[in-house]
């Protein structure tokens, strides 16, 4: 199998699409229901917090750009504990990541566009697409991202510009009406969807970038682009729809696209705009799924991950159908369980690895024993 190498620009684009995917659909509503018209402040605060988290996640990557998260865990926890931890991580990520995002796109389609279509049909078709992409490998995904990203930008910017005439600035006032306290939970919910899951990228990128020493910078740039896009979409939701309707709607960004109306002529283009969410959600699912596929092949010492993709994709699609029994369950899960889960996996876990790494350096001789007995 040849060695996969992608360029720095591709890293940035993949990171940006990964950041935006799924967040663009669900983040505005969740944040507006907590922070009301101050959701944009929470988004800024969340982005600040997000970059601190990203710094922790990227620390190991920066020190040794060729070893990925799976290898670090095995090295620092010892072989068997490391493998167990990795398996648990991959299993929970599999359920919480691609399976839920795939279901999310199913819900979105059945609510907004194809209400009587069985959700299975949408999940299987979109899942098949992700399987195809992942089986072809990271290089193909990265090139596809490079091709599709301009389209995403075009749609996103045109939507923003077309909505300028609908903006009501008074929707954003009064600033900090109920004080600063709702900002924190809103920022946390932002981080849990837009930044904490970046841990997945630490499985994918190490060893796969052609200029690996600078790869961390590319991740930062991609995240910044992603965060800016999310800031814009949250701001627009608040300014155009108002905090109340943003919070009440399942998918405010789709509602935004419905509001576009230039002179009773350029209107009803939300289905075109939906292409934007398809692009980003595709990369979100594919990157999650790719990380899990190569993670599993590493745990079981399987050299070639490709034969695993189709069976795993089958499991993904099958599980995704019943991952959320109903929509209120999904909302509850996003709000209460997903947040602590991603904090554990996306922040505490790399932090523990970092501390262990630091300890090893300080006690170079003892550490071998410690990790065996731990």
């Amino acid at each position, binding site marked *: 199998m040849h060695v996969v190498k992608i360029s720095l620009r591709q890293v940035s684009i993949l990171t940006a699409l990964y950041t935006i995917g799924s967040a663009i659909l669900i983040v505005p509503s969740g944040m507006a229901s907590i922070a009301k018209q101050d959701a944009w402040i929470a988004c800024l605060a969340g982005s600040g917090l997000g970059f601190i988290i990203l710094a922790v996640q990227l620390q190991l990557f920066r020190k040794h750009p060729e070893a990925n998260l799976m290898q670090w865990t095995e090295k620092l926890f010892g072989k068997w504990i490391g493998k167990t931890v990795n398996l648990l991580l991959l299993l929970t990520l599999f359920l919480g990541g691609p399976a839920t995002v795939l279901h999310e796109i199913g819900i979105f389609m059945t609510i907004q566009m194809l209400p009587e279509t069985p959700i299975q049909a949408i999940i299987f078709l979109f899942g098949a697409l992700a399987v195809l992409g992942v089986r072809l490998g990271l290089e193909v995904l990265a090139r596809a991202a490079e091709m599709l990203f301009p389209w995403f930008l075009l749609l996103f910017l045109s939507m923003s510009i077309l909505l300028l005439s609908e903006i009501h600035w008074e929707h954003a006032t009064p600033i900090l009406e109920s004080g600063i306290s709702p900002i924190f*939970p809103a920022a946390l919910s932002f981080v849990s969807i837009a930044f904490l899951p970046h841990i997945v990228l630490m499985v994918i990128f190490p060893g796969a970038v052609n200029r690996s020493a600078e790869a961390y910078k590319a991740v930062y740039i991609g995240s910044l682009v992603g965060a800016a896009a999310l800031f814009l979409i949250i701001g627009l939701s608040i300014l155009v729809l108002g905090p109340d309707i943003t919070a009440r709607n399942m998918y405010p960004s789709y509602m935004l696209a419905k509001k576009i109306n230039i002179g009773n002529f350029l209107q009803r283009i939300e289905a075109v705009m939906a292409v934007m969410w398809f692009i980003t959600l595709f990369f979100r699912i594919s990157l999650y799924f790719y990380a899990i596929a190569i993670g599993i092949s590493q745990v079981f010492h*399987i*050299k070639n991950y490709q*034969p695993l993709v189709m069976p795993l994709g*089958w499991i993904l699609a*099958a*599980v995704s159908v*019943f991952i*959320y*029994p109903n929509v209120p369950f999904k909302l509850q899960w996003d709000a209460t369980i997903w947040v602590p889960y991603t904090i554990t996996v996306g922040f505490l876990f790399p932090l523990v690895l970092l501390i262990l790494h630091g300890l090893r350096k300080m006690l170079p001789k003892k550490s071998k024993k410690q990790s065996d007995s731990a």
Partner: protein
Amino acid sequence: MLNIAIIAVSAAVIVWLELPRMLREQEYREIWGFIAFLVIGIGISLAQTIFNDIPTPVSLITIVFKPFSHWLSMFGLIQ
């Protein structure tokens, strides 16, 4: 019945697409992994067709992280 037939046909197609190449290149580890995951997948799909209502697997994650969630909501970090 139709569902089970679809599952069987899809499984056959996947095996036919993947297995010959792996056999030719003697990737035995890959074959074991492939078969194991395919069996799990078929199992889940069969369970879905036979039992109508399968509890969602994320409830396991829910049980583990419930205390953490409570703790965060005490600080007002989750609403």
